[in-house]
C-alpha cells in the first residue's frame, strides 16, 4: 500500500518517535488510516532486523531485539577503532581552529568529513556548540576531556598555535574567494 510505504520512509528518515496524529497531518490522511497502516507495518516487520515500536501515541523504528548483541559489538567497535589519518586530521583542525563549522572543515581538507565528525562526537573527543549566526549550522570544538588527555591546559599551548591559526585563516579566505569566482564563471 502506498500509505505504508510513505509511513515507513517517514519513520526511517525522522529517526525519532512521531505521534500518529502528526503522521496523519503530514500525509494528509485520517488518523484511522494511519492506525491501520501501522498494524500492517508491525506485522510485516515481525521477522525483520528493523521493528516498529509503539509507545502510547508515538511510533518509531528500532533495531530488532535479536540483534542487540550485535549492536553492542558495533558500538564498542566504533569507540575503539583506529581513528586513522583522516580522523587525526579532522581532530587537528578542530583543535587548532575550533569552534569551526563542518563546512569549513570540508573546505580545508578538500573532502567531505561528516562521517568522521560523527565518530569524533560519539567518542567524546569533540562537541557541538551553537553556531554564532544562530542558524542550524553547528560548529565543533574540542572537549575538556580531550585537552586534559593530551596534557594541555589551554589550546594556545599547542605547538606553533598562532602561525598555524593564521595559515588556516588564509586558506579559508582563499577558498571562499575561489568559490565565488568559480560560481561567477559558470
Amino acid at each position, binding site marked *: 500500500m502506498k500509505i505504508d510505504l510513505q509511513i515507513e520512509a517517514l519513520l526511517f528518515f525522522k529517526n525519532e518517535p512521531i505521534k500518529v496524529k502528526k503522521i496523519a497531518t503530514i500525509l494528509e490522511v485520517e488518523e484511522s488510516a494511519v492506525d491501520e497502516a501501522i498494524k500492517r507495518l508491525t506485522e510485516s516487520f515481525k521477522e525483520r532486523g528493523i521493528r516498529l515500536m509503539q509507545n502510547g501515541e508515538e511510533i518509531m523504528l528500532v533495531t530488532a531485539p535479536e540483534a542487540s548483541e550485535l549492536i553492542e559489538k558495533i558500538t564498542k567497535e566504533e569507540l575503539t577503532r583506529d581513528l586513522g589519518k583522516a580522523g587525526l586530521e579532522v581532530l587537528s583542525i578542530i583543535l587548532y581552529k575550533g569552534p569551526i563549522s563542518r563546512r569549513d572543515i570540508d573546505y580545508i581538507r578538500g573532502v567531505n568529513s561528516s562521517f568522521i565528525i560523527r565518530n569524533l562526537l560519539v*567518542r567524546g573527543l569533540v562537541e557541538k556548540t551553537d553556531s554564532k549566526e544562530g542558524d542550524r549550522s553547528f560548529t565543533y570544538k574540542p572537549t575538556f576531556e580531550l585537552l586534559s*588527555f593530551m596534557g594541555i591546559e589551554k589550546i594556545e599551548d599547542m605547538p606553533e598555535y598562532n602561525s598555524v591559526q593564521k595559515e588556516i585563516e588564509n586558506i579559508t579566505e582563499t577558498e571562499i574567494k575561489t568559490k565565488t569566482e568559480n560560481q561567477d564563471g559558470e
Partner: protein
Amino acid sequence: MWKVKTEVFEGPLDLLLSLIEKRKLFINDISLSKVTDDYINHIQSSSQIALGDRAHFILIASTLLLIKSKSLLPTLTLTEEEQISIEDLELRLKEYKRIKELGVHVRERFGKNILFAKTPSKNIAPVFSPEERITTKNIWSAIKDVLNNIPKIEALPKAIVQKVISLEEMIERLTDRVKQCLKMSFKDFSGTTKSVSREDRINIIVSFLAMLELVKQGIISVHQENKNTDIQMETESISTPSYGTQI
C-alpha cells in the same frame, strides 16, 4: 566568419563541438577543416580563456591546422604521428559529445527524486574514548599534513609545457611545408586559364599562413608565461582579459 559571443566554453572540445553543431555537421576531418578558421578566430579574440587553459586550446588548434593544411594541399604528406593526432581528435570529440548527451540525463535527474539517509540521532551519549596516538606531537604533524595538502600553487603539468614547446617546432615546420607547396602551386597553376580559382586558392593559403603565424605567437606567449614561475591555480579560475590582447 563566426563572431565572438559572450558564451563561455568549458574547454577547447566544448568550443569545437559547438562550432560543428552550429553548422549541423557530423564529426569528421571534413567538418573539422571547415571550422578551423572559426576556432582560431575564437581563441585569438576571446578574453575568456584563462591562462592555464590556453595551452589546451592551442594544442587542439595545431591539430586543426594540420587537418586544414591537408584539405588545402592534398599533396601534403603527414607524418604518422600527425595522422594519429588527427584520428585522436575525432575520437575525443565524439567521446565528449557522448558525455554531453549523457549529461542531459544527469541534469534531468539531479535533485529531482532524492533518496534520503536516516537523520543522525540527536541524542548521542558520548563515551570518552581516546586513543594513544592523540598526542600534541601527532596532532601538530597532522595539521601540518593538512596545510601541505592544500593545492595553493600547482605547476602546469610538465607534459603540457613540453607539448606546447614541441608544437612551436611543429607549426614552424608546417609553415615551411605550406610555403613550399605554395611555391609549387604557383608553378602548377601558371599555365592554366582558370586564373580566378588559382588566385582564390592562393589567397586562401596566404591567409592560412597568417593564421599559422597567429597560432605560433600564441604558443610562444603561453610558453613564456610558464618559463619562470609555476602557474598559480587561482589564476586559472579568474578570467584575465589582458592575456587575450597579448596575442
